[in-house]
């Protein structure tokens, strides 16, 4: 099975914008979207809500969301809002 993965780098300063851009590419991501979070040392409420929304939209389209390079502090935030079970993580 060959699936097309979309790879996007998320920047600390513009998490919301990056996720909005990523959302636009969900239609071409047939299997998985890989979001590179290695430049996100901290996530704020708007970023977190944008990520939740993005994951919801990806679910609707049957696209899996993987996060790469998430630091442990951000990972804990995702854990606390119970988002980790809806994501996969790549170091």
């Amino acid at each position: 099975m060959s699936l097309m993965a979309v790879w996007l780098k998320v920047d600390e300063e513009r998490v919301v914008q990056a996720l909005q851009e990523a959302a636009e590419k969900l239609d071409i991501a047939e299997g998985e979207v890989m979001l590179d979070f290695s430049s996100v040392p901290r996530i704020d409420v708007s970023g977190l809500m944008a990520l939740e929304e993005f994951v919801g939209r990806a679910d609707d389209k049957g696209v899996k969301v993987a996060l790469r390079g998430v630091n442990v502090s951000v990972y804990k935030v995702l854990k606390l809002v119970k988002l980790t079970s809806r994501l996969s993580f790549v170091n």
Partner: protein
Amino acid sequence: MITSEAVQERVHIPLATESLSQERIAYLEGLVSQAKTAAAVFTQFTQEDVDRIVKPMVLAGLGQAQYLARLAVEETKLGVMEDKVLKNMCATEFTYNYIKDKRTVGVIREFPERNLVEMAEPIGVIFSLTPITNPTSTVLFKCIMAIKTRNAVIFSPHPNAWRCCSEAVKIMYETALKHGAPEGVFTCLESHTLQDNAYLMRHKDVGLIDATGGPGAVKAAYSSGKPALGVGPGNTPVYLEKTADVSVAVVDIIVSKTFDNGTICASEQTVVIDDEIYDVVLKKFAELGTHICNEEETKLLACTVIDPETGCMQPIAVGQKATDIARLVGLAVKPDTKLLIAPIQGVGREHPLSVEKLFPVLAVYRAKSTDEALKVCVDVNHAGGLGHTAVIFSRNEEVIRKFGEMMNAGRIIVNSPGSVGALGAVYNDLVPTFSFGCGTGGGNSTTDNVNIYHYLNIKRVARRTQAHMWFRVPNQIYFNLNAVENVRQFPSRSTIIVTNPALEQIGHVDLVRRYIPEGTRVHVSVIPDAEPEVKVIMQGVEALNFYKADQIIALGGGSVIDAAKIMKLKYESPDADLEELAAPFLDLRKRVIQYPTEKLNRARLIAISTTSGTGSEVTPFAVLTDKERARKVTLADYSLTPDVAIVDPQFVMSMPKGLTADTGVDCLTHALEAAVSSYASAYTDCNAMQAIVMAFKYLPIAFEHPGDEEARCMMHNAACIAAMAFSNASVGVNHALAHAFGAHFGVAHGRANALMLPHVIAYNAAVPTKFVPSPYQKGYVAHKKYATVADLLGLGGHTVDEKVKNLVAATEKLLDQLGFPRSIADLGISKEEFERAMPELTKLAFDDPSWRSNPRMPLMSELADLFWKAYQGRGLAKVTSASQQTA
């Protein structure tokens, strides 16, 4: 805490939430979700981040203190605006002063001497109820605490204080947000119902309920199944004792009771005044603008402000001015009256004014004595004030101490106002708060002034500590041929030589006597039995007392030296209870029973060993035979260790072959067990290893050639050196097995040890079924220790396995050389008899304390297995070492 009409409507928070509409549930879920997200994001904040937010919040609160106070008074119609300003300022400024330098993120406290660090973990979402009596100050206080600790709060203000509280929340939230706090960190329920509270109290994402409210709210919080902080009701007793400074006390009580019209639940309710000062006190009160009610006025007052049905205060009076209450009652008072004082004659339902009164009405009681005063204070404390606050004015430290002992109150305020005193940081060093924990008496989980630490999960990071170890042996050890001559250097007025008949007969006692300084009175105490009993020992103690001995010379084997140790103990400390001192223990340093340190008499103990095995001359152990109960009692304490040990081989030259072998194997077993013990250290290892090498080399020679002086000398030293090792590292499972087997079948200790030894080496070298927890060892090393022993003995082998196998083989060969039976079966014990004895043997072995320092914990089944291996005999020990690695 408060029972106004408005409060009563929320006393019974319903358990069921079925009546909530879907829309309402969605609204509440939205609040929780918002708070949860904020709390999650908040976990990333550093200490500097939160401190940057807290300070402007405090300044905003201070700036709006008057505005919020006015709002509160206008809305609640309770209290005094000027006092509420002060409350708001205390809630911000004093709280900040307490928390500003406190760490609440990451490492918050360090205890280097304990290798312990405390770290903070936020709670997450806090659901907070706030009261009508202190509405805005409580909100300000809780907001500052929450930000400092990185928590989100959903506020549920009292319905009759909603406007002022939501305004306070708004001010705090906007300021926090402006300085970087996560969105949604504070929310305030809009027009809520009791069902809303019930729903939120049980919500899975709410981490803590902080209920500052009436008893109903607190009860509901604690009943919700969630962790909760809740304040309880108060009924503060005050003891105005005859030594008090009356002028100061009266002003303090007025300050406190009139503060915000008495709405602080810690304020004074009943003042118990000593008879000697009662009139002076009331006169002083009257001079300072207080109306003292007469009997008729008191009755009228009670009828009006206390509900005769419930016995609780009437809501209409809560937080009202004294003059307004007087008008309500119909009392004629001066216009500047601050406080109404009502004399009462007792506490309870028959004395309505003895309950909590959150308004400026104070009950007073005339006590005829200190005892009566304290009892009345106890009555008041138990009449609705358990766990809260109590106040005393006194200069008598003993009375203050007694009062503190008798009151069940989280705060016992001395010589200062109760209400402001309990709030902390003004009159004393209590932590500033607007939430008083009332302990179990008030149905709370804490008696503390609720503070930032109650808004944190405190994590303890406990690093492994380097356990202190020890190496304790006699101060002086003299060894080699003619070492006995050193007896002459110990002056004594009266010496008792403890020995056995055989040694006296062969002239050993005379040999010792030769070196006792002239002028010393010498008495010989002969112990007839090889295993001395208490009765025999007590006869020896009688002799010590009779001759007023200052020195004991124990000349003999283990039994004699052990008996002398116990004689010394009972002579020096006659009240020592041997039964109690023999109580079991796990760690010598933490044992329950302590050996006596106060001594009636003092005597030096010189131990001269006449066998080469037990090493009793240097050990802290003594075994006593209890024939009546057919058992042996082991005493262990370093105070039993002889003061001087003499290891002179001339006393062992005539040892028979059998005894040479038995004691020699005992020595070897001591050393091998100490080497792999979980208490082993570098200090014991060097002794254990050296003793093993000496025993392997010289024991066969001493056995085959009893007259070989060098071999005898080396084995005598080896026994002492091995004993120094096991005195500090203890022994192991070999001894547990040998004790059980020896006791059951009457087999000599050394012989019993020999039967078990190869099997125990193989057992300890294998991967344990169960490891023993030990702070003294890192990792499992028994097999490596055995390999080291094999190397020292030059046994060859490349791997740890091979070396352990070679050690087992060498041990078996040595035992063969010494003529020991190869198996328990060889002793003539039938398989059936052994099988029958097995339950008893395993029980005895498991109960034996010796194995507690064994490197692996023996299971009962493993003990049985070891017994059966010993039954089958040598040559069967299979080595499967815990390590396959090349040594």
